[in-house]
């Protein structure tokens, strides 16, 4: 009986919309994470696997239906946003023998916007002030100020004013 009640409470907590739901989720999830900054917004239907390895900065925004698997460590910087339906993975499904030592943790910098339906693969680093376009599958590192799009994601332009973009 206790298990059913626990399940119903966690389902309610996960799906409650509006400010009340966001507030309650912030209180409930904050203690479970490795570290969590202020004013983090957890939207509905969010799944976090292995929350003990997840590091969040302050003012992070999550959209609906975000899935984060933080088995080997995921860290997300301040003022970043992850939009609806994104999946963040930190464990590879298959690694060739010569790539066994490669890191699998995911690092997202400050002020990064990850668009809807993106997939962030294991072992990538996204620099500060970058933008990931919607629907892209990120398999390689994205530098600072880069705008990446496509499957696999490539840097298509730069998030800078036109005078600075040549550097």
């Amino acid at each position, binding site marked *: 009986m206790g298990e059913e009640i626990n399940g119903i409470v966690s389902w309610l907590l996960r799906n409650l919309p509006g*400010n009340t739901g966001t507030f309650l989720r912030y209180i409930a999830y904050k203690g479970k994470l490795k570290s969590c900054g202020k004013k983090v917004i957890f939207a509905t239907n969010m799944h976090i696997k292995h929350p003990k390895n997840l590091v969040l900065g302050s003012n992070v925004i999550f959209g*609906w239906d975000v899935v984060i698997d933080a088995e080997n460590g995921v860290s997300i910087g301040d*003022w970043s*946003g992850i939009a609806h339906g994104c999946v963040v993975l930190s464990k590879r499904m298959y690694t060739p023998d010569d790539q066994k030592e490669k890191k699998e943790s995911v690092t997202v910098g400050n002020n990064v916007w990850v668009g*809807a*339906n993106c997939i962030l693969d294991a072992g990538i680093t996204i620099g500060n002030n970058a933008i990931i376009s919607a629907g892209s599958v990120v398999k390689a590192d994205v530098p600072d100020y880069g705008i990446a799009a496509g499957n696999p994601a490539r840097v298509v332009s730069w998030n800078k004013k036109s005078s600075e973009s040549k550097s």
Partner: protein
Amino acid sequence: MKQRFRDIKWIIDNNVWLTATWLVSSLPGKFGYKLRELWWRKNLKSCGSNPVFGLLSRIQNPDKCELGQNVTIMYDSYLNASGGLIIGNNVKIGNRAKIWTDNHLFTDPDKPFMLQGFEYKSVAIGDNTEIGSCSFIKAGITIGAGCKLLPGSILYKSIPDNCIVAGNPAVIIARAGK
């Protein structure tokens, strides 16, 4: 004091409305379909006859969304109508399809984008168009009549009438009816 009271009232109203929408949208079975039809007919700007709203289908800012006749919106699809959304007759929107009508502004790259506000662009979808599952439509796009978006297509540009579209970024792969 009066302004503060109004703000608190708006927050409570919004929370009650969102909770009711969530309960209505997650109700399974025939009764759920009937209830969703009644609920969205009350809240949408305009809605034709025979709409079908699937389980967990979500519409944000429904007061700016216009639906034609015989529109089918399937499981877990998300329509963001904050910039104006016009959907024609006999349109089918597949599972987990997403339609966006706002963009974040990135005018100053060193400032947090959350403090820079939004730009709103309207989306229009023509008659008899089918939108495949998991496809994504960006803000400011018009889709012609009789188009087919194959599953998983991510649309960056507007497309004319009678096209079949696929891929990421989506390109026209064939013309229907020729």
